[in-house]
């Protein structure tokens, strides 16, 4: 029998209780203090529903974008050797490592009407900064590593023999990809999609600079929480926070189910 069980478990459980469970309980206590009708009115007020629409819509768009282009990037990084591959591979984690506020001001500077990219787009009549599209761009940046890092290890593990067998049976590359590779890859793509989506819903720092923060138009749900907190509307802030938490946990459960289909713990790097 190894020593230290009581000490390590005791410390871990106490610390977990103090840092995580105590404040989460406060959220529940505060929510329970409001009457159900008060709570529902706050959670689903017109402004809150508009904010969920903006948050969920932009997160969905960004996660879908990443679910399409993330696997392409993962494919190129795993299958091909070319100059700059190592650099790009390392930079895929940039959205994890770069503080969200820095990402926020940088994307805004690039995409605003007088920015490097925004000025070119303005000539084409396209506005990104301070619109919902801007929110989606910020979330696409934040979500990219989730999809790439979930798909990459699965792709690297695929046995070449399957593809050889498909080729022997007369399948072309596209047919092989669709019938042999995609069925193996899709749980990873779906997991990455769900992670990017979940992260997008709660994301704050990278979005508040580029979104116009107009109520009903470009106001994301996390920003509405901050606004209500600043106005001392604790019931409102708590109600919206609980809705966001419920959605996150539902997604977490869905991801765990997918994860079991994925098999071994391949997402080690994903949360990094």
């Amino acid at each position, binding site marked *: 029998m*190894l*020593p230290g*069980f009581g*000490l*390590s*478990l005791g410390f*871990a*459980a106490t*610390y*977990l209780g103090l*840092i995580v469970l105590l404040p989460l309980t*406060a*959220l529940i*206590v*505060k929510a329970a203090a409001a009457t159900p009708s008060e709570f529902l009115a706050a959670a689903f007020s017109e402004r809150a529903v508009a904010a969920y629409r903006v948050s969920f819509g932009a997160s969905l768009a960004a996660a879908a974008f990443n679910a399409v282009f993330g696997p*392409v990037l993962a*494919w*190129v990084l795993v299958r*091909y*050797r*070319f*100059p*700059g591959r190592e650099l*790009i591979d*390392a*930079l*895929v*984690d*940039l959205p994890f490592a770069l*503080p969200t*506020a*820095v*990402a926020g001001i*940088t994307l805004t*500077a*690039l995409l605003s009407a007088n920015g*490097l*990219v925004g000025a070119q787009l303005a000539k084409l009549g396209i506005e990104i900064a301070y619109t919902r599209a801007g929110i989606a761009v910020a979330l*696409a940046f934040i979500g*990219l590593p989730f999809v790439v890092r979930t798909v990459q290890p699965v792709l690297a593990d695929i046995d070449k023999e399957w593809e050889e067998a498909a080729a*022997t049976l007369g399948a072309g*590359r596209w047919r092989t990809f669709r019938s042999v590779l995609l069925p193996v890859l899709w749980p990873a793509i779906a997991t990455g999609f769900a992670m990017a989506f*979940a992260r997008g*819903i709660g*994301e*704050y*720092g990278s979005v508040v*600079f580029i979104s116009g923060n107009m109520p009903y138009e470009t106001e994301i749900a*996390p*920003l509405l*929480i901050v606004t209500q907190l600043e106005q001392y509307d*604790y019931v409102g*802030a*708590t109600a919206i*926070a609980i809705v*966001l*938490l419920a959605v996150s946990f539902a*997604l977490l459960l869905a991801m765990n189910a997918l994860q079991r289909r994925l098999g071994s713990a391949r997402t080690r790097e994903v*949360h*990094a």
Partner: protein
Amino acid sequence: MSAADWTSVLRPKRSPHSLATSEANGVRLALIAFALVFAGLLLVLPLATVFVSAFAKGALAFLDALREPDALAAVKLTLLIAAISVPLNALFGVAAAWAIARFEFRGKTLLTTAIDLPLAVSPVVSGLIYVLCFGAQGVLGPWLMEHGIRIIFALPGIVLATTFVTFPYVARELIPLLEEQGDEEEQAAISLGASGWQMFRRITLPNMSLGLLYGIVLLNARAMGEFGAVSVVSGHIRGETNTIPLHVEVLYNEYQGQAAFAVASLLAGLAVVTLVAKRLLENRLARASRTAKENA
């Protein structure tokens, strides 16, 4: 990369089977070109923009933005917060990994799931729960006021919020690592008469050191860069409760773009260092894991 590498892109060495299991050169080149442009626009361009904008008015203006008292105070505060949060969470990670990877007990699955909780919570909500707990209107607020203890809009609140969002980083790295390594060496040490502390210092700690360092690198980057959670609990008092990311926000909102990017470049520099360290540690971890498997 040399010219030879480029030739290998265009004309890869082919085994007899590979014609059927790889793409035509055109497709291959198009995909590589796409990846380069995509990564260039989405990753390289933003990173470069931070540094270019930081030096937009020359090196002197860059240094001035960093030497300004509020900026220095923000740097000091951020370092102080990391100095508290990082060791605490690292210690928790080691303890949790030891309990979870080495022992069977009731509620183990629950504990493992609870460790991941903070990852599913929006940064803003992470800040909010501390306000609801310790703020003036919070559950424990009246009691704290009575005793003159200030947590929200002060250092303790910022430390707590930071600790919450960075909570799982070390534990998540160490649990799978310890499970993979197994407990044979530790069992041997104990049966040879080593004390628990000796076993930990001579076997457990050296074996987990790479994973621990890896977790700490990620934890530290997130702790120093956290924005949403800290923003909710800090109160934004200039020179007092503004961390580096909050100071960046203040400068940016006051239309001091160059100064904002100068301060932001500190965090972008930290991100680059983090990415490099992460890559190096990943390579060493992979090598260590291979060696362990070969020896087994």
